[in-house]
């Protein structure tokens, strides 16, 4: 009976082919020897992994970010040419143009750039630490916590550059510690932290609603405008604290990156490799919270950037974890691009950037969920 026999072989062939496919998609690194190359220097005695694709991607992303940054500076009520913008940036050219670029448009673009980087890096830190793509700061309530604190500041009358930043930091920190403490039960498993975070996020949102309702009409208006994630009317007062925070926190995040990767192998393996798990985790948590807090205080809670940017960067780089630098650049690209779309989509009105990132980012969230469920890692 040759017929059934051949049928059987085909089926087993199919099965093995499918399992091969599955293993390839589950661990892209195993198939990716072309993606990376180890190097070892005799002097100074360092070794590491060189990933051409990741480096190339970062360069492309940086170039794209620069183009969008300048493009953002050219558009507005008073259009300025690309070359004029570049010339105004270095301080030469028509004084009027320099004024418009440096006083009105540059703060906005800088807040977009820096906040985007901060969102992306923070998301990458959290997603790597919890080993869960859904555990980004905007899903587990940190953004909402910062939002509640900032709105409390606006409504109760502590508005203004540094006040807002400090309040955002405080809110995010308190929320992070609350979520961590509530989700703790002999370690924090990935999904408990998300669901607890969602509960906390809901409480924070209610508190914000309460404050908005309690506040006067003008304060409520200001709070609402801020709550969607908005780059309109940013000033140098918002750029300063954000830039200082990034100058401290970004190098920390990069230094933590290597430790983060050992942490991703699981606590036991990480301990075996000599990583002091708890201090490292605390450091990552604080860095991630700081980044998200300062970004949120300056730009408002721009929806889904921290969730989507690291995942996009990871897919583009073909790595098994969200790469830190590329995530930050993707975040900046998303925020600046979103702001451009928001400004030019409907002429006359300026949509907040958070609307655009929300509408574009939401399907990414659903897709991540479908993937997690398919892989069987969900719940």
């Amino acid at each position, binding site marked *: 009976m040759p017929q059934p026999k051949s049928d059987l072989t085909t089926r087993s062939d199919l099965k093995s082919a499918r399992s091969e496919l599955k293993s390839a998609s589950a661990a892209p690194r195993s198939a990716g020897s072309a993606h990376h190359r180890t190097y070892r220097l005799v002097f100074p005695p360092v070794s590491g992994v060189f990933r051409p694709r990741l480096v190339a991607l970062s360069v492309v992303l940086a170039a794209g970010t620069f183009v969008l940054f300048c493009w953002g500076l050219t558009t507005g009520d008073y259009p300025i040419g690309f070359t004029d913008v570049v010339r105004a940036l270095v301080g030469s050219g028509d004084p009027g143009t320099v004024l418009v670029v440096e006083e009105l448009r540059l703060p906005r673009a800088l807040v977009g750039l820096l906040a985007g980087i901060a969102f992306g890096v923070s998301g990458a830190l959290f997603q790597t630490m919890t080993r869960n793509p859904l555990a980004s700061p905007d899903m587990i309530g940190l953004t909402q916590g910062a939002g509640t604190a900032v709105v409390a500041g606006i409504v109760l009358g502590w508005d203004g550059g540094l006040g807002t930043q400090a309040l955002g930091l405080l809110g995010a920190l308190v929320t992070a510690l609350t979520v961590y403490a509530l989700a703790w*039960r002999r370690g924090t498993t990935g*999904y408990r932290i998300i669901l607890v975070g969602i*509960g906390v996020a*809901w409480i924070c949102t209610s508190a914000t609603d309460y404050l908005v309702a309690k506040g006067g009409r003008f304060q409520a208006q200001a709070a609402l405008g801020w709550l969607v994630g908005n780059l309109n009317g940013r000033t140098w007062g918002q750029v300063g604290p954000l830039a200082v925070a990034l100058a401290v926190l970004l190098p920390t995040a990069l230094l933590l990156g290597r430790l983060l990767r050992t942490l991703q192998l699981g606590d036991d393996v990480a301990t075996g490799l000599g990583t002091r798990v708890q201090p490292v985790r605390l450091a990552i948590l604080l860095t991630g919270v700081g980044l998200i807090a300062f970004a949120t205080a300056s730009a408002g809670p721009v929806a889904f950037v921290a969730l989507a940017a690291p995942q996009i960067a990871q897919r583009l780089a073909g790595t098994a974890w969200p790469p830190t630098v590329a995530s930050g650049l993707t975040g900046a690209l998303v925020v600046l691009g979103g702001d451009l779309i928001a400004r030019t989509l409907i002429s006359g009105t300026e949509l907040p950037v958070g*609307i655009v990132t929300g509408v574009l980012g939401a399907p990414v969230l659903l897709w991540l*969920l479908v993937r997690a469920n398919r892989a069987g890692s969900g719940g």
Partner: protein
Amino acid sequence: MTGKRVRPVLLVTLLGTVLAVLCLLSLALGAANIPPDQVISALFGDAPSRFVDNVVWSARIPRTALGLTAGAALGLAGALMQALTRNPLADPGVLGVSAGAAFAIVLAVGVLGINSLYGYVWFAFGGALIATVAVYLLGGLGRSGMTPVKLALAGIAVTSMLWSFTQAIVLTDVDALNKYRFWSAGSLAEADNGMVWRVLPFLVIGAALALACAPALNSLALGDDVAASLGRRLGLVRLAGVAAITLLTGAAVAVIGPVVFLGLVVPHVARVLAQAAGIGPDQRWLLPLSAVLAPILLLAADILGRLVARPTEIQAGVLVAFIGGPFFIAMVRRRNLAEV
């Protein structure tokens, strides 16, 4: 036999009294407080002044009636969802059904310009139904089947997505923004006289369907296979359940906005009370109990919201979420998120 009957009777009397007291308070308290005796005389058509008559009949009674009906609808929908999915985290708010209805309503009002309740309530039903099916499919993906956590995550993902879309519509329309802000948090303040009557038919049909499901839900609690072997037609039960959830949530959201967590908390309280009264987890009791407890919670939140932030009001939904959020976290923290 008598000893077994007394405690349920006591429970029903107790809840009825609490609800009656809350109704009276809801009629009496607010921007202008009216003494209870004047409220009662106004109810019997002999108000001490025109002002009292006006406040009670044209503002407070519609509002209280709306709280009673919409609250009961959401509580019933929550209990039904928890029983159907055997999932302790199920709630019209958490599983995206309210968000679906809300998005559809905003779409109808903001984009298509439909302003009558009978115009957009159909959109609410459609949105609720689509969101229910989407979350159900999304949560059931994968080998481990539909676990409580997966279903809740799917619901929250769908909710976030719909929320973004809703925001995009609302923020392009400045006029709609203010009205939407109040409605979106879940509020009874917009109640007018005809509102309750207009949604009542949908709510009655939904409630009847839900209660008709109760015996079958008791079998379903033993597992799909056992329920089927007991002669329950699972497809029919699910269909009726989803229809009831759609009607109840869609109509409630259309009038009071998406209130989150009401349907989550109430069935758990009902279960505890039923246990204490010696009834046990019998859906024929749990569903009506939830329908009574939910208005108690919603009215209490509404009354509190009128008092804490005078002269403005806090939306009832905000206060319900304040209570419901910690409850949700406590549920998640339970050692094993067992199926109900």
